[in-house]
């Protein structure tokens, strides 16, 4: 099933990617080409095969619930696009 332009617009919205209208035909073609490659998977018989998420099948390691990091807000906010009084600034969300 090939993606239509409207599908690509929906995916781009889900991914919060602002695309130019002029790029959409080219992107739609490229995604369809990639999904054509990916669809070769459907010919593989995987009945009863358990999915593999971690190559060594390790599970998440747990650690004691202790504070190990110090506060580095100033260092981290020094590289932010816009901050004020220790807060990250974004455009107004609530009118």
């Amino acid at each position, binding site marked *: 099933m090939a*993606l239509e332009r409207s599908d*690509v617009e929906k*995916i*781009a*919205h*889900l*991914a*919060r*990617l*602002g*695309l*130019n209208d002029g790029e959409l035909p080219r*992107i739609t073609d*490229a*995604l369809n*080409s*990639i*999904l*054509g*490659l*990916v*669809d*070769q*998977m*459907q010919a*593989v018989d*995987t009945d009863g*095969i*358990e*999915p*593999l*998420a*971690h*190559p*060594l099948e*390790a599970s*998440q*390691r747990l*650690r004691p619930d202790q504070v190990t990091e110090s506060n*580095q807000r100033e*260092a*981290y906010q*020094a*590289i*932010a*696009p*816009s901050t004020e009084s220790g807060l*990250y600034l*974004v*455009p*107004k*969300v609530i009118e």
Partner: protein
Amino acid sequence: MHELTLAEIARGLADKSFSSEELTGALLARVKQIDPQINSFISVTEALALGQARAADARRAAGETGALLGAPIAHKDLFCTLGVRTSCGSKMLDNFKAPYDATVVAKLAEAGMVTLGKTNMDEFAMGSANESSHYGAVKNPWNLEHVPGGSSGGSAAAVAARLLPATTGTDTGGSIRQPAALTNLTGLKPTYGRVSRWGMIAYASSLDQGGPLARTAEDCALLLQGMAGFDAKDSTSIDEPVPDYSAGLNGSLQGLRIGLPKEYFGAGLDPRIAELVQASVKELEKLGAVVKEISLPNMQHAIPAYYVIAPAEASSNLSRFDGVRFGYRCEEPKDLTDLYKRSRGEGFGAEVQRRIMVGTYALSAGYYDAYYVKAQQIRRLIKNDFMAAFNDVDLILGPTTPNPAWKLGAKSSDPVAAYLEDVYTITANLAGLPGLSMPAGFVDGLPVGVQLLAPYFQEGRLLNVAHRYQQVTDWHTRAPNGF
């Protein structure tokens, strides 16, 4: 001085033939002089390097020893480096000065290595040609009209051009081994979990692994020794002892069982590469290895599965680039959604956007089972193939790539054509296995690599076999004309 390997530098520093400061100064001058031809560095960290060199000389004067103490390194520009731009090859992070060191960067600095700079790469490590970098394409020192491979293309080109003896890279689907093959280097992707991913900007977290690129297996052993080990900060780091890789280099290959997967020698492989691979097998047989044909029947399914798993993980990992906390922010956003969309639309390049969208689609409601779960099932089939093969053989050998380096731009209009070049390397990432590429000859003046794959945590075996091979061949010593 630029001809020296890491091992030779270690001896020269130990016997005081030169100081780290002298060596560092000479290499920095060479980087400035030569790199404009190949574009392998994104940032040169001259002040940092000279400070580290003087500190290493002082440590050595105080009686400290160590193979890496005072030796040069450059890091792929996705290893966070404190106070230094860490761009990931992207406009998105052009203004990002990392607020901390990646574990790999910190470990190598503690061992006394001198950071000359940060190397060019495909944007967010997505690519096989190093053409998707915001900082421009990297050129292959063996032929400046050809790509160096990717995504660690800058790391490979810098070493191939004799700017420095070794660099770090990362390998998600072949991004260390493939550029090593295309530039006549030895490159090692360790077992998943062997080297800490902490501070390595994530592409596909279940596949990414850092490792060394150098001219010799001996140098890769020295560098891996400094990089490997358990790290509590990386939740997927594996707590396994790290063997002495240099001590194992000279082990006998008598009776070593090498498997040649028949699927690696089928359609699509340049027959001239097939011949060189067979010649390398003959050399290993002379050293005592025993060769048999094996089968990895699910290999052909690896690329389709990879192009679901990697983009799916990327779409999740790259959601952090939102224009709020760090990185690029668009001009005058009109609301929060516009801020997100335009920052990401303007900050990410075309290939990164494509992979984010493929991943977003594969994970979206209604498609998750057909794509993501199916790909993970195929991932297990591929792992099972390897587990069965390693019952019969100690090592698997084949070509690293189906073709030598292609011309700049030749595959940039068709992403799928470039994806297919990773056919032999992707399986090791899906299975989490260690793999190494080593120089094995030339086709039309362009280097050819042979890939070795081993069971989990057998990096030492890969280095041993490559080192013994390099004792009886001289492909790895060849330098490109003009460098």
